């Protein structure tokens, strides 16, 4: 059996440069998107991967080919691109980033009018255009425009959202690690504007990333060390496109990516008032605890930012996100935004006067195991039926893959939209229990 590392899906197109992600595919995909948009203006921004220039040239060629005006925003975090698209009322945007994937990967993510990712049905239509290959090529291509201060729109929105005066009085010391990614040119100035003292690690744009860009504990060694060295109050890590955030406490210990969202949601509910909460099906139970503590409802959506965003709109939630560190604040924009997350946490620290480790300790402990199994989609049906028959006694949710809840543990198994893998997550009250249940599930898979 052969599984391609290329993934063309409703999330966009993703692959490895030098293997599956060729300029021809990028061109074709950009032409399909521009044909689908059908005119107007779309913004293009990238993260800092060395392949960005190659990809960007093909993206612009594809956009020009189909008569859409491209606006070049240079290097920009994806939430900033989404917010720019919304605020400037553009017709769409393309983000050139493989997010948390290692440096050899790259991808195109497609943003609709209003600054959200394409809705699943729109993405299906786009894929039809792509596969049919009949593009709206024009005789007279438009010209490329450039924006030189693309981050300002996003920055101003966040600065207005939090109490900067309050944060300033506390003189919070921060170490931030943007992984040499799209946030690197902006994050230090942003945090300084919030009144914090900032030390930046991995802020230089170099060939490749200084660490694996996924902001999980095992990749945060530099940050943890720097937090201890500089005696900082908090450490922040972003991934390459700055949608996800991880937090390190004042002792240089990562609080765990699941707890980033919990802290942010808790901060929001305490500082900005009550609101229902929306998280995806793969999110830790600690969020349910946080919601219960504030007496608000919590809703679960399918995995994927756009699904969370739409559920937030449906139930009127102002705060939500994804368990892997994706914080979504509707006052800014319902997209995963590490900048909104940082601002909220800083305001909460200033308001509560507590240390990060103390804030974390107020929340119950859970242990989560995450794993991915390389698999073709054709194995999925079989896996699903085996799991369903074995775990029929639990509370089953089959909105997106299979989530089964028992009183002491839950698990979620689903095929990924971005990689040819099946993702497996198990969470329990203790580490041993999580490991044990994980082993049993893996036997079934």
């Amino acid at each position, binding site marked *: 059996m052969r599984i391609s590392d290329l993934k063309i899906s409703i999330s966009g197109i993703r692959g490895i440069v030098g293997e599956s992600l060729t300029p021809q595919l990028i061109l074709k995909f950009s032409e399909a998107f521009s044909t689908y948009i059908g005119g107007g203006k779309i913004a293009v921004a990238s993260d800092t991967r060395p392949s960005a220039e*190659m990809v960007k040239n*093909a993206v612009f060629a594809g956009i020009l080919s189909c008569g859409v005006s491209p606006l070049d925003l240079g290097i920009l975090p994806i939430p900033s691109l989404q917010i720019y698209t919304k605020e400037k009322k553009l017709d769409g945007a393309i983000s050139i980033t493989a997010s948390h994937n290692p440096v*050899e990967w790259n991808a195109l993510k497609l943003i609709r009018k209003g600054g959200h990712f394409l809705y699943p049905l729109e993405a299906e239509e786009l894929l039809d255009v792509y596969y049919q290959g009949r593009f709206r090529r024009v005789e007279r*291509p438009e010209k490329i425009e450039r924006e030189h201060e693309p981050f300002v729109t996003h920055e101003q929105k966040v600065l207005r959202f939090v109490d900067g005066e309050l944060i300033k009085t506390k003189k919070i010391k921060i170490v931030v690690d943007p992984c040499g990614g799209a946030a690197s040119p902006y994050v230090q100035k942003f945090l300084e504007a919030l009144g914090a003292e900032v030390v930046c690690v991995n802020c230089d744009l170099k060939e490749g990333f200084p660490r694996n860009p996924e902001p999980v504990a095992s990749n945060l060694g530099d940050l943890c060390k720097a937090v201890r060295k500089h005696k900082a109050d908090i450490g922040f890590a972003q991934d390459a496109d700055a949608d996800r955030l991880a937090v390190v406490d004042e002792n240089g210990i990562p609080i765990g990516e699941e707890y980033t969202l919990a802290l942010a949601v808790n901060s929001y509910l305490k500082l900005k008032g009550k609101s229902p909460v929306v998280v995806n099906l793969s999110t830790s139970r600690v969020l349910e605890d946080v919601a219960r503590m504030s007496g608000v409802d919590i809703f679960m959506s399918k995995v994927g930012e756009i699904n969370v965003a739409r559920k937030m709109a449906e139930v009127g939630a102002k705060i939500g996100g994804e368990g892997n560190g994706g914080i979504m604040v509707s006052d800014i924009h319902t997209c995963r935004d590490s900048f909104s997350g940082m601002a909220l946490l800083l305001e909460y620290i200033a308001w509560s006067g507590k240390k990060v480790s103390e804030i974390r300790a107020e929340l119950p402990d859970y242990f989560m195991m995450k794993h991915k199994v390389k698999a073709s989609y054709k194995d999925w049906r079989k896996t699903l039926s085996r799991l369903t028959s074995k775990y029929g006694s639990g509370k089953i949710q089959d909105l997106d893959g299979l989530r089964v809840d028992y009183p002491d543990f839950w698990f979620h198994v689903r095929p990924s939209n971005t990689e040819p893998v099946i993702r497996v997550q198990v969470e329990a009250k203790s580490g041993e229990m999580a490991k044990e249940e994980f082993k049993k599930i893996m036997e079934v898979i």
Partner: protein
Amino acid sequence: MKDRLRISVSGIRGEVPGALNVEVASKFSSAFSSYLEEGRVALCRDSRCSSHMLEMAVISSIMASGLDCADFGMLPTPFLQFLMRKESFAGGISIAGGHNPLSWNAIILLDTGGDYLDISEGSEVFNIYEAGDFRKARWRALGKTHTLKFPLELYLDTLSKIVDTESIRKRNYKVVADPCNGSTSAYLRDFADFFRIDLIPINDNPEKPFPHSPEPSVENASQVEAVVKSTKADLGFLLNSDSSRLSFVNEKAEALSEEMTFPLCLLSLEGKIGKAITTTVTTSWADWAAENIGITISRTKVGQSSVVHTMESEGAEAGGEGSGSFSLLSFSSGYDSLLALALILDYMSKEGKFLSELTQPFPPLNMKKIKIEVPPERTYRVMDRLEEIYYKESPDCTDGIRVERKGIWFNIRPSATEFVLRITIEGEKEEQIESVEDELMDRIGQ
């Protein structure tokens, strides 16, 4: 024919949008850079509205194959060819439709020295294209793109070693230029200042579409004629969109046939060259001029690729075609209009004569060029039939069929750049030309 691509060593040509689009440009660039050794690929483009877009597709594909791009932006192809002799490049790509209509464009592949590929090199690239077997660089080995400026001073200095610059400067010629809103527009001012020319440019805004068909010819010269007349200029000239062809308007505001450009260039080089190459469809004035200055001339297939490669293999210093193109190997391997212009200015100042006087001794000849649209799948059947018909007249089959009769010759050949048969008839008497035209139309129509 909108959806048909014309693939040859003269370039990958087609209409945009249509046969030529970003994907085709990308695939050919991937094939070409897979074929090349390591190093930089020199890039330039003309002013067509599709050129920048195609160039971005080209850049992306070259980078993906692990080669670097030296991007000179909007630049005449002969300038790039000139520079490729001076600096080291793995190869070059020019995105320029030359004389093709505005809706067309072309991807032209150049070898390490700036020459068009020859037929065997070209077919190696086209085979890689067909197989789709492109070189792919890992992320760390991807190529980089550097935006560079063309060293015009070097170009002008080199030119001033070929012509008598001082003598041209003293004349302070007043010259009307029509670069057809092409890529040469931005460079004409410096060229004129260098030779102390009082330049009157028209149609020199590359942001605008072409004001007329970009083929230098008598039909397209009416604007230049009018301006030469009203400004009492000494000379006027027209370029195609990327400066590989030119034709003149004399000081009496009369447009000269583009066929005169090549023989005039030869005459200007009297005593400096010994051999020239042209094609089987170039005017007999070329033979007359060669005889006049005591050089030999031989004829080959049409197109920059075959003319320049024949110059190189036969040791000829000069070459050119009746379409208004000229190349001097000691300068560069490309057809270069500004070189030709400098030669004509040199000739005028040396002789102290204007163009009407310099062309006065040309023997009286008339030429008729006709193109007939023939679908590609019928082209070779038609050519076969004509070959059978004219077999008795022992035709020259270097490029199509060339038949020589008393006081007249004609040539019929399939175009390398468009889906047409090109017919060229040249003779002394108009009636004779007309009767050959009738004869040919009759036979092609059969």
